[in-house]
């Protein structure tokens, strides 16, 4: 617990340091009933979760979302259907309310068709960053009102799943650029998409290479090492960190396997079961996102990313116009600078500045 802050008061009141009283209880007090009260309150209010999927078209984003929440959130685009390729990056958002055992979840999924599909993909991350910042801005505006609502609607993006195409080599420049920028603004979970084209060994090698790449460029993906609070968290999260990025396969069709009905992809050489840990790591992703770390994702978004945005915004507000699509250009420096970071970091920033100045002239 943090050291007690002495509460000020006009009359001479002293807040003495907290004394931990011994655990000999003479009887029942009932403090732990507060947990039930919390639960009741939470169930009444419902939960909100906003997720964003980013990746090139054809990597199975919509299918993945459908598989995650086991419902038709998106109409997955089938190959062969003449869907016009979007010319610029667009952002589609869709909101659903799903309920399970009394727990209501308001789920918002934002899709980004057209990401990385053009020939020149320069600055294709800008609209995404703009969208994320706009959600922060909306929340901030609500928060600093004089008469504000009881419960501010939370549209901030809690998690961004980035789909890495299964080349088997390493992260591409587009991936690196995108990850670098977005990691500072939002929780990013990279996944290896369409992992059924890689064998297990290839998968492992690819994963290690990606991890090395991330470390070299000091990209902190979720779960961030610097936000681990205590030992338990560290242990749990390091296990997850070993497996990031997950190699996933998405499927929304059911097939019969050994008498069971499973979600899977039917191929000529077998059926890839989505929920089978031996086949792919979809269960890990699902557990991370929904069953164990959903609240943590929301907390980190609220306590860290939103606060960073707020600090920058409040400091510079008189110099900049407020408007949608304003890109967060002064990102907070990564909390734990490592030795390898020094060289690529500033170089990248300079290059970015140079690009912009070139384009200006």
């Amino acid at each position, binding site marked *: *617990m*943090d050291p007690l*802050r002495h*509460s000020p*008061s*006009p*009359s*001479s*009141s*002293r*807040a003495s*340091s*907290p004394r931990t*009283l011994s655990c000999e*209880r003479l*009887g*029942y*007090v*009932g403090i*732990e009933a*507060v947990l039930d*009260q*919390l*639960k*009741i*309150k939470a169930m009444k209010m419902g939960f909100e979760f906003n997720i964003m999927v980013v990746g090139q078209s054809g990597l199975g984003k919509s299918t993945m979302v459908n598989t995650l929440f*086991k*419902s038709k959130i998106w109409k997955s685009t089938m190959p062969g259907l003449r869907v016009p390729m979007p010319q610029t990056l*667009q*952002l589609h*958002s869709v*909101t659903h*309310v*799903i309920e*399970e055992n009394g727990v209501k*979840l*308001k789920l918002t999924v934002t899709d980004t068709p057209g990401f990385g599909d053009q020939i020149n993909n320069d600055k294709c991350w*800008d*609209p995404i960053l*703009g*969208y994320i910042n706009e959600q922060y801005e909306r929340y901030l505006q609500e928060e*600093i*009102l*004089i008469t504000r609502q009881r419960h501010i609607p939370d*549209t901030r993006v809690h998690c961004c799943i980035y789909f890495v195409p299964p080349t088997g080599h390493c992260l591409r420049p587009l991936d690196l650029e995108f990850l670098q920028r977005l990691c500072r603004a939002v929780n990013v979970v990279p996944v290896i998409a369409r992992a059924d084209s890689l064998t297990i060994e290839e998968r492992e090698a690819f994963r290690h290479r990606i991890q090395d790449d991330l470390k070299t460029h000091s990209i902190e993906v979720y779960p961030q090492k610097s936000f681990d609070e205590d030992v338990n968290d560290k242990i749990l999260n390091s296990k997850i960190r070993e497996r990031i990025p997950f190699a996933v396969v998405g499927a929304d069709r059911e097939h019969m396997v050994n008498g069971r009905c499973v979600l899977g992809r039917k191929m000529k050489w077998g059926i890839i079961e989505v929920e089978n840990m031996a086949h792919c790591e979809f269960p890990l992703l699902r*557990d991370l996102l*929904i069953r164990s770390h*959903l*609240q*943590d994702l929301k907390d980190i978004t609220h*306590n860290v990313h939103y606060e960073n945005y*707020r600090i920058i915004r409040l*400091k510079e507000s008189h110099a900049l116009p*407020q408007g949608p*699509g*304003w890109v967060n*250009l002064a990102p907070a420096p990564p909390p734990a600078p490592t030795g390898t970071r020094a060289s690529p970091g500033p170089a990248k920033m300079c290059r970015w*500045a140079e690009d*912009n100045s070139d*384009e200006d002239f």
Partner: protein
Amino acid sequence: MITYIFLFQSHITTKTAHTSSQVSDHEQKQKDSPRSLTMSGHVGFESLPDQLVNRSIQQGFCFNILCVGETGIGKSTLIDTLFNTNFEDHESSHFYPHVRLKAQTYELQESNVRLKLTIVNTVGFGDQINKEESYQPIVDYIDAQFEAYLQEELKIKRSLFNYHDSRVHVCLYFISPTGHSLKTLDLLTMKSLDSKVNIIPVIAKADAISKTELQKFKIKLMSELVSNGVQIYQFPTDDETIAKINASMNGHLPFAVVGSMDEVKVGNKMVKARQYPWGVVQVENENHCDFVKLREMLICTNMEDLRDQTHTRHYELYRRRKLEEMGFMDVGPENQPLSLQETYEAKRHEFYGERQRKEEEMKQLFVQRVKEKEAILKEAEREASAKFEHLKRVHQEEKLRLEEKRRLLEEEIMAFSKKKATSEIYQNQTFMTPGSNLRKDKDRKKEPGYRLELLCFDVRACETIGGRKDAEEAPILCKTKVPDHRRSSQAKAIKMISNAQPLEGGSRRAGESSQAGSLASRARPVLQR
């Protein structure tokens, strides 16, 4: 960096146009109530409340209770009994001149729940003779906690999740068991506190009232509160699980409680109770007092709701009032939505402008004052120099005069010394004539002592005035020398006197001779000197 930002703005306008339309679609979709989906399988987010609870357990809970009541009414004992611990031992005195608030924080733990409990006690409430200022410190304390939270919330770099929330969540107001009605002080205090904190009134020391009296008392109290418009905390009845119990508890307000940490053996159990000669009042017996109800309502059922109400109702009210007081508004003059930022900036400019103006004013004032002072000083200088001149002149004149005087004096001195010289010469000359001796003797007789020199002067004077007379009267020739003739002049002086006073009467000759004798005797020691 700033130019870079503006370039960026222009660059993405084309894109933003498109995305904004998309976003407005998104908004549209959100404005329509979101469609609900049914899932075809088990997803697993039913564990969400558990995740929330785990996080809260990790963070710990915070609860602040304010106890308001007269000294000795049983506040500390009740809190001890509620939380089953001996928090503090000493009793407070009745002789404080003002009401003070004493806050103490404790960390309690039950199974895996950590609670940071802050108890705020009013010390000296209701003890003073003049109780007008009694409730003001309490109101100030509550406002101060709100203010601290507001300050933290408005900071640029803030850490709200780490913040030790010290806002008062519930106020237990202790009513003394008179059995009649609310005291005026109680009414006034509750009225001033009801918009700032959740008030739960309790009847303290309820073992002093009988059951029937208690019923009447409770009804009387509630009606008084209602008729005076005091809003006490009502247990929430909107959630079905607890609505029923809360509603029934609402009917039992205010709770009549007895606090005790002493254990008494009743039956074959040790229970908390107060032992009297006429019986034992058991604290946890529902028939005896409402302590169990209070504990249930306060801790087990509604702790979270109390905190929630404090944050969303009382704190928001305070915040709104405070910000409006400072001049911030949500809507500007033409109904354009104003942001806090803009208002703040405007205020800041205004403030700086004001300050600059004031600085200018002060500078000018300063310059003016300096000038005035300078003028005064110059004036004084001039006067001083004039005076100096004047004085100098006077001094000069004085000096001249004195010089004049000195000169005169010196002349006189010179003249006098000349005269002296001449008189000495003359004196030497006159020593030849006896008359002068006699005259000298006579004068010697007249002024005995060291005035021998003066006698010479007088000789002249006598000569001029009456000396001739003497000379005429006693034309005795003196043939002796100067030293001798002194003695002889004595005898002659005696003769002189006897001769000199013929006018006074011949009859007195005998006496005169004796007088002369005495004179001679007198003169003699003079000479010897």
